[in-house]
């Protein structure tokens, strides 16, 4: 081997060794500040068995803000793990559930249903490549393999796999010294002042494609069906809920009745109960923003609606 080539190899070798060291430090730091990421919760959960696992997008996250999960556990006598993630559609939730069932056990899944999550790849395939989620996901060879299979079979961007395996998002994490909390948690005690402009903006964000594409909906309906199959194979009972949102916000949801009808039929055929609380809590005092429950909202929702479901009353 020539001298320049040896030198180049040595440079690369030292660089890789340094990279491994930085990667290890970033992983350790992630464990120090981790909190809300569903994979972090699975990896660090103290218990093996749960009564309930909660899946869904950001509407389900206030149920785990601050110490609310513990409060719900005390109020219902159930062991609960909330694995909801912001903007997570059925594909991401199925991925989370599969990984959970590989590691732990639950008797029930509470799936928090959102129509927007069935309308765009933004909330499904593209969520896997979100650096905010990747940088808080602990490394596990099984998870890397699982993600690779999603890249090959489900169209998840291969760069997400590369990012996860290389730990790039963790190394490059700007918030590496901050606790992993979703920005909504900081507003948990606020009360939202209704604003038509804010509602419109939020709807535009949740539904990036103005026109619903039946093929896209069919794709995510099938993914959701396969999530239900996964639960069924594992002997896990699924209960579906729709979280409350203000009535004025609900009116803006595009084609919501058609969505309810299609998913309702699917669940009915499988004997899965669905509890639609969409219009159950209209008062602005229950929300910290356009459509997320605040502390007062979660408290009321727990006592009036969720508690009986979790207790099996």
């Amino acid at each position, binding site marked *: 081997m020539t001298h*320049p080539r040896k030198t180049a190899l040595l*440079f690369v070798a030292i660089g890789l060794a340094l990279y491994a060291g*930085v990667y290890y430090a970033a992983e350790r730091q992630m464990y120090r500040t981790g909190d809300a990421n569903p994979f972090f919760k699975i990896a660090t959960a103290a218990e093996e068995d749960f009564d309930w696992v909660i899946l869904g997008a950001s509407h389900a996250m206030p149920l785990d803000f601050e110490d609310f999960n513990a409060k719900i556990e005390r109020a219902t006598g159930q062991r609960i793990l909330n694995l909801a993630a912001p903007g997570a559609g059925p594909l991401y939730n199925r991925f989370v559930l599969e990984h959970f069932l590989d590691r732990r056990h639950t008797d029930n899944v509470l799936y928090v249903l959102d129509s927007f999550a069935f309308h765009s790849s933004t909330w499904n395939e593209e969520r896997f490549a979100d650096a905010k989620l990747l940088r808080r996901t602990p490394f596990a060879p099984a998870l890397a393999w699982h993600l690779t299979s999603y890249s090959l079979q489900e169209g998840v961007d291969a760069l997400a796999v590369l990012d996860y395996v290389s730990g790039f998002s963790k*190394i490059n994490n700007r918030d590496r010294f901050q606790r992993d909390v979703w920005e909504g948690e900081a507003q948990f005690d606020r009360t939202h002042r209704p604003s038509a402009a804010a509602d419109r903006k939020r709807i535009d964000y949740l539904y990036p494609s103005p026109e619903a594409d039946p093929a896209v909906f069919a794709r995510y309906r099938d993914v959701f069906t396969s999530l239900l199959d996964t639960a069924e194979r594992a002997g896990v009972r699924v209960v579906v809920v729709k979280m409350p949102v203000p009535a004025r916000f609900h009116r803006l949801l595009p084609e919501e009745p058609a969505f309810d009808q299609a998913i309702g039929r699917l669940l009915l055929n499988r004997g899965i109960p669905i509890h639609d609380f969409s219009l159950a809590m209209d008062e602005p005092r229950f929300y910290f923003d356009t459509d997320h429950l605040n502390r007062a909202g979660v408290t009321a929702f727990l006592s009036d609606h969720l508690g009986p479901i979790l207790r099996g009353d």
Partner: protein
Amino acid sequence: MLFTSFAFFVFLPLVLAVNAATPARWRWAWLLLASYVFYAAWEPFNLLYLGVVTVVVYGCGRGIALASSRGLRITLLVAGLAVVLGLMVAFKFYDFLIGELEQIAGIARVLPRLGVATPVGYSFYAFCAVSYLVDAYAGRLAPERHAGNVALYVAWFPKIFAGPIERATTFLPQLGSALRATPEQTVAGLQLIGWGLFKKLVIADNLAPLVDRSFSIAAYATPVDLLLSVYFFAFQIYCDFSGYTDIAIGVSLLFGISLMENFRRPYLSASTAEFWGRRWHISLGRWFRDYLYVPLGGSRIGPVRRYVNLMAVFVVSGLWHAGLGYGVGWTFLVWGALNGLYQWAGVATGPVWRRLGARLPRLAASTPLRVLRVLLTFHLIAVAWVFFRAASVGDALLILERIGSGLWRMPGLLLRYPFSVDHYLGLGLIALLVVLEILDERRSIWQRLAAAPVALRWAVYYAGIFALLVLGRWQAREFIYMQF
């Protein structure tokens, strides 16, 4: 395709590998194909404009070479310039001017719009095209027979988005070589790419959010916020643009093609004339000098014409910059005119400085005076940048007014200002950059590195690479000048 994207880090090694495996006489074809792929990756339709400019440059260039009469040569030159510059003017200004006209006339939106954004990089390859045609007409360049070489000159991917505005007289002769890098060129190219990425991703993109925040709420931001943002923007735009240029020159070197130096530590200029003439965007400065200032008569015709010509150059430069990321607006015209005024002041006070230099040579050459002049020049340029960055002339004036009104309280305000980690990071990076540039001014950093022990050299390389990994903002923020 951005230089900072993952796709580019796959694209570049692939192009290099295939280039190495291609017979030398066909490398131009491979590099032309790669350049078109690189450009089309941004927006395939833009290839149409690139094609039009290439055909015009080659056709008119050959026509000028073969034309038997001066009249025909002039006709071909004017026709070529009309197409290339006409498209640029139409893309940049037509919709904006129609809108302004309707607003002044108080009429609703009735006139037709083009609705076409300026194709990315058009301003840069259009200026290359203009220099080719004018040089061919003036006899400084023998128009190229090989259409592929002309196409590669216009489309060469490292420079297509944001320059340097390379001249055909220096570019085309290099296409006759093997189009492969020597080991020295490879090392220099990789060093420049690394330094360019550091300037862009670590410095410019870490400053950008702080700048964006204050400029977007100029009426509500505190004077300290605004002052910091003005300083930060001066370094953001420098690191963004010079970072791009360094990467472009570095990538080009990997193929054995040298592009001209475009930045030479501009904030160490002791006058605005030095800043614009010899240190900032050198290829554009020379372009304006050779194709506008000199043809207008430069400083040869008389003092009044000299002032007029200087202002013309800077106003046209302002117009050329319009549409760059921050929209098309009157701010660019004001920015150009303000820099023109600086030149006027420089010309007017030139004799005073020369007399001072003659009477007090030690004082004129002293370091403290030089430092003072550098600081004054930097602040003049920074004030002009406010017009470049602000959303409107009103916003720019508001920012300057608010900073000015709070200036006498600034020391106290700074002591009480809640600096964030991002502020400290930005200030630290700027300090590092300034120190390195001062060292580089005395002796090239690369020469210093080459002379350093291997352990120190490698430590610097690793520090740079890991700074990119740990601190770089890789979320594909565009280069500012790409949008001109």
